[in-house]
């Protein structure tokens, strides 16, 4: 068993920032991560970090833009905390040596980005995430923070009182990918989940193979609700064959979208008469699919993004890596021809429900980064708002877990007297636990009162048994088959356009995946670097996460932000200014709602029509 004050699970931008903050607060912190830190998907972010740095800009404008972009489903305390702290955190990165792009006077460059009223997206070439990730990893090395890399976290060591609000998290169970050894990691103060997005629930995504929603699923099964999972952002410009992302920076610099008729459709067909290509992502993604649907797509699949008119010099200066991406992954030279693009799953606005200090309703369990939902992004995230979220809320979670007092949070978490129960949606199939499955309950062994070490020890044993069962089984279904089926169902039915019938169909298929998973087995008999085993466990997590996405998409019968419903073409503010929360409830999920907080520090954000 290993023991530290704070255990951070995941070493992308959010995890690294949390670890540095916990270390600075004096805690003994360790990171446990399935990838070496520099392999984390934060490294793929291209565009930049929103922060109100310049004179003429201020945090209130940033907060306003974010709230508008969220379609009024962001919680004001979270949105304002983000906008107020992003400048300092961005400057902090610069002080750590991050190579930002520069203006002539030597100050950091900022550029316009979709949905922003001021050019406040701070960038480092077209590789902002790469530099952010490496710069923070450098600081982790400098501080000598312990990193257990290529350790896969399988479970949380949480007590299991009936009410999740009474539970406590004492650590994690992980296995060393290289040797297969399973160990407990005891956390004396807290566990911070920073495991990134769940993009692998879809089959066309800009997310990495590692983005399997592990943290979501572990927190969910431990009792922390998942919030607003139906809100998935589809990026309008991903390359058709791989899902590799072409940054919004291209449109920020003046890139233009054309349909197969050579029309600049964003204006031509009135999708966004003011902002055109720079309208919010959901607007552009739907416009593209509408064009394709109406027969104006190229090869019936995609549209063209043209940047040739910007000229070679400007492209080489600001967007050079886009040229490499188009060439290497699509075989297209962006200097001489337009690039094919289509919408791809990109970002999950929802996630593990936390407050401004990163705490879930389970004592000692925190979440930060894309796996968490504070909620800053509400119904739709603005480009350039995720990276500041990593550093602002990653830091807060790390500080709080290390015992620093950050004040009482305004956001509430867990089931409570301020929530409303879901009553009227009929589900096509029961969600949750399948057939033989046990919940791995500590209580079942009479463990509610067990001490921290006892809880951890029992979880380690359960994990060992689970792995043995998967490895000993001689035949059955393989994870790849189930995963592919799940991904296809999500992309077919819970994509940019959603219908009641389609989403119900998806829920049925997810149910089938669960049943089939009962028969899953790991073919590779080796304990050494067994990726077959790892992917098998990840696939289970994807099933749980995909189910919450589909459930949320079904119950929310309105059109808000990225969530579009065929039968419900308007935003219903009287009914739906509330977050969707799904709680695992030991295998019989329940759905409830918590009102959104629109009262800010100095003003109340009045829902307005979101037009660009």
């Amino acid at each position, binding site marked *: 068993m290993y023991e530290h004050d704070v255990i951070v699970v995941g070493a992308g931008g959010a995890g690294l920032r949390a670890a540095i903050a916990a270390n600075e607060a004096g805690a003994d912190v360790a990171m446990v991560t399935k*990838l*070496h830190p*520099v*392999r*984390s*998907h934060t*490294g*793929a972010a291209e565009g930049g970090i929103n922060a109100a*740095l310049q004179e003429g800009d201020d945090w209130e404008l940033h907060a306003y833009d974010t709230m508008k972009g969220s379609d009024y489903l962001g919680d004001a305390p979270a949105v304002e905390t983000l906008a107020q702290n992003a*400048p300092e955190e961005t*400057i902090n990165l*610069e*002080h*750590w*040596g991050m*190579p*930002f*792009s*520069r203006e*002539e*006077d*030597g*100050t*950091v460059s900022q550029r316009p980005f979709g949905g922003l009223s001021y050019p406040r997206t701070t960038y480092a*070439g077209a*590789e902002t*995430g*790469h530099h952010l990730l*490496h*710069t923070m990893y*450098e*600081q982790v*090395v*400098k501080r000598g923070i312990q990193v257990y890399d290529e350790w896969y976290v399988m479970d949380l060591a949480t007590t299991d009182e009936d009410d999740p609000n009474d539970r406590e998290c004492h650590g994690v169970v992980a296995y060393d990918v*290289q040797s297969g050894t399973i160990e407990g990691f005891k956390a004396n103060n807290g566990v911070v989940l920073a495991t990134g997005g769940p993009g692998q629930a879809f089959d066309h995504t800009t997310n*990495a*193979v*590692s983005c399997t929603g592990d943290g979501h699923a572990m927190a969910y099964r431990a009792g922390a609700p998942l919030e607003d999972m139906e809100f998935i952002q589809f990026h309008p410009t991903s390359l058709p*064959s*791989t*899902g*590799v*992302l072409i940054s919004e920076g291209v449109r920020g610099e003046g890139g233009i979208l054309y349909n197969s008729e050579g029309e600049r459709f964003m204006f031509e067909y009135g999708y966004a008469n003011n902002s055109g290509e720079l309208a919010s992502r959901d607007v552009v993604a739907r416009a593209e699919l509408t064009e394709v649907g109406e027969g104006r797509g190229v090869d019936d699949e995609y549209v063209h993004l043209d940047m040739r008119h910007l000229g070679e010099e400007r492209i080489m200066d600001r967007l050079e890596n886009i040229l490499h*991406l188009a060439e*290497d*992954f699509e*075989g297209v030279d962006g200097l001489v021809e337009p690039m094919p693009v289509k919408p791809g799953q990109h970002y999950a606005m929802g996630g593990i429900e936390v407050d401004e200090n990163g705490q879930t309703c389970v004592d000692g369990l925190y979440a930060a980064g894309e796996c968490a939902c504070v909620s800053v992004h509400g119904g739709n995230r603005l480009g350039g708002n995720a990276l500041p979220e990593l550093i602002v809320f990653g830091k807060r979670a790390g500080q709080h877990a290390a015992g620093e007092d950050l004040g009482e949070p305004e956001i509430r978490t867990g089931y409570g007297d301020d929530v409303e129960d879901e009553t009227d949606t009929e589900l096509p199939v029961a969600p949750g636990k399948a057939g033989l499955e046990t919940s791995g309950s500590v209580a079942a062994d009479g463990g509610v009162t067990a001490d921290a070490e006892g809880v951890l020890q029992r979880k380690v044993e359960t994990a060992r048994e689970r792995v043995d069962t998967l490895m000993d089984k001689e035949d059955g279904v*393989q994870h*790849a088959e189930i995963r*592919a089926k799940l991904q296809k169902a999500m992309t077919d039915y819970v994509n940019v356009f959603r219908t009641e019938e389609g989403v119900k169909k998806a829920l049925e298929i997810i149910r089938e995946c669960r049943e089939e998973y009962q028969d899953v087995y*790991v*073919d*590779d*008999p*080796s304990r*050494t*670097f*067994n*990726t*077959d085993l790892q992917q098998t466990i990840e696939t289970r997590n994807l099933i749980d996460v995909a189910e919450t996405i589909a459930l949320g998409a079904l119950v929310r019968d309105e059109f808000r932000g990225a969530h579009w419903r065929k039968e419900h073409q308007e935003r219903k503010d009287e009914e739906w200014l509330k977050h969707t929360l799904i709680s695992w409830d030991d295998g019989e999920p329940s759905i409830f709602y918590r009102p959104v907080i629109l009262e800010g520090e100095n003003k109340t954000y009045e829902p307005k029509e979101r037009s660009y």
Partner: protein
Amino acid sequence: MSTQQAEPESQEAPEDPAMKGAESPAADEQNGGGMVDEHAEKAAELEGETVHIKVFRYDPEVEGKQEPRFDDFHVPFEKGMTVLDSVMYARDEYDSSLTFRHSCRQAVCGSDAFFVNGKQRLGCKTQISDLEQPVRIEPLPHQEVVKDLVVDMDHFYDQMHTVEPYFQDEDTPPVDDLEEQRQSQENREKIKMSSRCIWCGACMSSCNIAAGDNEYLGPAAINKAYKFAMDDREGEEIKEHRLRILEQEHGVWRCQTQFSCTEVCPKDIPLTEHIQELKREAVKKNLKFW
């Protein structure tokens, strides 16, 4: 979906099986196995066909895999298919124990540097239609093989950490002043290429000097140090300290300008140039040679 069946048919072992934990096959044929120029043409030709890959297999604890061998797979070709796509297909459809690192699929995470047709390449960034068949896919040479295409990266990481790879400056203003350090566009440009490294290890694996001197810092670590040493935001004193680290016995002077690292770097970093420049800097600073 496919009628191709898995066919790990051949059992041919690589030439050098005297390996403890299997040191992977030596990099003897550095001359990049047959790049085909008109890759579009080749791709069109391949449409509807399969691609033949030969993949190195080794597992220290599984019977039949303890002796390194090559397995053959025939994978249906699709336009735009990369080497990574081909091994992913082989794993998902034919043999789930086929093991390799990968994550981003877009040349930023640096997980999937392999030895492909005799050259270090990033799997996700290498179009398979550019390669001669059968495509031989092996783990990076000169590193201990953990299993199949997975090598032990610890030594690489250790070398990276040796050069104090973090920004060091004492007198940055307090962050709440919201004042950034100033840096000229020229200086930013100067460090641009060096800052692109994704820690893939291709350069180190291609380097003969690193193969012969286990303590040699290697091109990636030296390049990392270059990034800091050339950054005007760090003071002169620190720069001197950095040059001293690079000057030690297993530092820059080991490099014999063979350019193999520069040739394989998937991020096109001019590594050899950077090493040369640091040598000149050291001389300029009149630092003593070891």
